[in-house]
């Protein structure tokens, strides 16, 4: 009887611990993006860019994928900062991770080239 109770309790504990598994690591992305969007400033830009970089590093550590658009966004910020090599590296990463990004990256490069 006692064994049965322990078994039932174990089942509840195991199913209770079954948390929703996410595909990607998001860090604090929404918050820094919201702040940067709502109050664009040097400070909020620095914070958002730092979050993007941190997110990419953390994803590797946690064995999760980098979400769609993160490398793309960082590439655009690096372009603004004049870091061409980093820009290309991140654009290439975006396309490697997500083949759907190919045309979007080409569009971005065209827009950046036209500046």
């Amino acid at each position, binding site marked *: 009887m006692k064994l049965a109770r322990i078994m039932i309790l174990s089942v509840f504990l195991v199913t209770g611990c079954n948390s929703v598994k996410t595909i*990607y690591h998001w860090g604090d992305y929404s918050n820094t993006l919201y702040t940067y*969007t709502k109050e664009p400033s040097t400070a909020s830009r620095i914070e958002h860019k730092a979050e993007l970089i941190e997110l990419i590093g953390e994803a590797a550590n946690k064995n999760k994928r980098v*979400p769609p*658009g993160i490398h*793309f*966004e960082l590439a655009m910020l690096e372009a603004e900062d004049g870091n061409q090599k980093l820009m290309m590296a991140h654009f290439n990463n975006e396309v490697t991770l*997500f083949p759907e990004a190919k045309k*979007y990256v080409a569009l971005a490069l065209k827009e950046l080239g036209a500046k």
Partner: protein
Amino acid sequence: MLRNIILVVVITILSGCASVVTVTKQQAYPDMYTDAPTSILVVPAINQTTAADAAELYATTIAQPLAEAGYYVFSIPFVEKFLEREGVVDGEQVSNVPLDKFRDLFDADAVLFVTIRSWDTNYFVTGGNVTVAAKFELRSTSTQKVLWQYDDVVIHNTSGNSGNILADIIATAISTAIVDYVPIAHAVNGRIVSSMPVGKYHARHGQDGIDKGIIQSKTQATGEVK
């Protein structure tokens, strides 16, 4: 006699519960499974509310649930920038752009339109909430059909609940006044997107048609052509 009364009461309660019609994902959104879009372009929201922030809150929090639903989401801040360059600034103007233009420019399989109908902060002594009503619509860039739609009112509770009435009044006032809207926007988007059939990057891609519990009245008819 008592037994009969109980029986009647039970049947009444059960039939009350049965009045909300639910369907499976496959039944609600068959075109989503045949069209099978892999990429979603999110365009600026149509904001019908007086909350100036609502469109921004949406734009900065919608990528996460869509990506977790298995779709490639084009980086939203830059979609807006590129559209601005084309003279398309808000949600109303976007709805005038022909869908195949989004396919040409971005290679997007589908475009997500949203109308934020209301965003109200309600405060009443020991209780408070933020109530958001929004209509979401995903359209195919190749067939122009509506692949997925959901029209919902989500109530996010900001009430204090310590059991101590004075503490609750204060807690509610504080939490409703200085409420962090980002988690609320997350909650609203997450709940609505959970009705969407999952995409390529999700483990259950193509398998979730059998998932039940989609409230039919929130989905309306699918397969409409613009």
